[in-house]
């Protein structure tokens, strides 16, 4: 890892980081506010049986809902809105760092310095992780601020909340590692981004369908999102194997990237 490159990367991405962090903090805060304000009413509606099992099924992915605080916390981390916000950095930054720089021609200028490709790769990975840690910390901060302000903080288990945060960091680190591996493989952003977005959307759809449709439950382990169950963590019933699975995928993606990036030819940008 290069400290010079890392400083420059963080400086260049600071406004994007702040914007996404503000969005996620607001999102986390808002879900706690919705729970504190309307949670009891929504729970009564659900328990009244007006919707049959529909709401139960729809909230099965990640256990997200706004009629328990644990569910609200889960929703703040696993809802498509928060996924899209985190992806701006977890996918966007790796794309810009290698394939984007390659496409613009600036990677050539950087690699003309005495810095190895492995260090460039390691720095891009570290920066991605720091961005992910930062924006998810903002999400966490928003949840804690919302729960405190709306006087429901006593329902929160801080240790479990931190585990949710750590598991989310691991999930998006894995997504970032996959994105960086794709970015290191292609000369242009479009194919790399296409593959990673397709993997992410398919992965989410597989988990969602597997949760809604019992016949498809068997495919859920093929989804990255299957290994992040915030509601289970908040309830204290999560499996530590989820973290092991995500760590394994991360290590595989990072190993591939570290193998392919120094070995590939970098022809003149077109």
């Amino acid at each position, binding site marked *: 890892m290069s400290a010079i490159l890392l400083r420059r990367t963080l400086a260049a991405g600071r406004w994007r980081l702040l914007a996404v962090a503000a969005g996620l903090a607001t999102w986390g805060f808002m879900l706690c506010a919705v729970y504190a304000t309307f949670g009891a009413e929504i729970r009564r509606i659900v328990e009244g049986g007006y919707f049959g099992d529909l709401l139960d099924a729809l909230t099965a992915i990640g256990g997200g809902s706004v009629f328990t605080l644990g569910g609200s916390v889960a929703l703040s981390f696993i809802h498509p809105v928060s996924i899209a916000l985190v992806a701006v950095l977890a996918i966007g930054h790796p794309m810009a760092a290698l394939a984007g720089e390659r496409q613009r021609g600036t990677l050539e*200028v950087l690699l003309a310095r*005495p810095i190895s490709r492995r260090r460039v790769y390691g720095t891009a990975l570290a920066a991605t992780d720091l961005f992910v840690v930062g924006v998810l910390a903002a999400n966490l901060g928003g949840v804690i601020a919302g729960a405190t302000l709306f006087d429901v903080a006593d329902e929160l288990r801080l240790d479990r909340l931190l585990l949710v945060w750590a598991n989310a960091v691991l999930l998006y680190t894995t997504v970032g590692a996959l994105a960086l591996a794709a970015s290191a493989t292609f000369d242009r952003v479009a194919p790399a981004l296409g593959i990673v977005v397709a993997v992410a959307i398919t992965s989410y759809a597989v988990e969602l369908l597997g949760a809604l449709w019992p016949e498809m439950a068997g495919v859920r382990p093929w989804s990255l999102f299957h290994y992040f169950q915030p509601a289970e963590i908040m309830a204290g019933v999560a499996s530590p194997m989820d973290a092991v699975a995500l760590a394994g995928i991360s290590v595989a993606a990072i190993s591939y990237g570290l193998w392919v990036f120094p070995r590939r030819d970098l022809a003149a940008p077109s």
Partner: protein
Amino acid sequence: MNAIETVGLTKRYGLHGAFGRLGRGRRDPVRALEEVTLAVRPGEIFGFLGPNGSGKSTCIRVLLGFLHPTAGAARVLGLDAERDGVAIRARVGYLPGGIALYDGMTGADLLDYLGSFYDRPPALRTRLLDGLELAARDLSRPVRDYSRGMRQKLGIVQALQHDPELAILDEPSEGLDPLMQRAFYEILDERRAAGRTVFLSSHILSEVERVCDRVAIVRRGRLVALEEIGALLARRRRTVEMRVDGPPPSLTGVPGVTDVVVVDGHLRCHLEGDVRPFLAAIAGAPVSDLTIEPARLEEAFLEFYEDREPAEAGAAAAGAGAGDDRDAERTEQ
């Protein structure tokens, strides 16, 4: 130790690994470089010429470790280009062709950032900025506001500011106005005077003629000529025009003189090689006017650029190199 040394350097694109064999098995690989062998001496300015797509940039990218050679080897400052890329780049300054810069940074920040990767201080920055007329006010603006010429100047400064032992410059005067080109040539002269080596690729033949000690010409990935600029020019055909007030001198059998045409006291011929036999032959002739058009690199260059078979071009190059330092200069066919 040579500043740059390549032996049988070959680069082909395509057909690499399992993906290449599966997906493109019926396609011929692109032969970007074919057995290029050359040596650049320390302290010289070496011109690397060739038409678009001839393999100049590929060769430069192999030297810097951006591309891995298919065969052969390259050494830069005595280090292996494949294995020792980081150590090489610590001692080299590089200006890519059509350089891309970080548009959001100011010129000053960019130079600081790019210079901070080196152990050497940016000792030449002030001199380069002065020479290329980049004022502090210009450097305080974001690079996105720069004209093409200013970007190129900034590219030159970032490549040379840390006083590299070897500068590899790809089309360095592209986008510079004539005044700035002259300033850049002065900088190159200073590099040579300081004992530093410059390897530059260029399409501007007057520039190569003006600044380079030796020149290599590549075509279709092959080296077709490599020799001293002076020797290359000395062998070029010059056109002689002469007006005589009486009988024209006999030029039959004079070494190097061909295509003699005399019309109404006006003699025209071509002259190659040593000029002294010609001068001796016209001594005493009633010459009232004499013009010998100087040999230009352009003619030599175009000769090698002509669309001939590589073997033919190689033979021409072999002839061109006769009598030169064959240790350092090899002509490939």
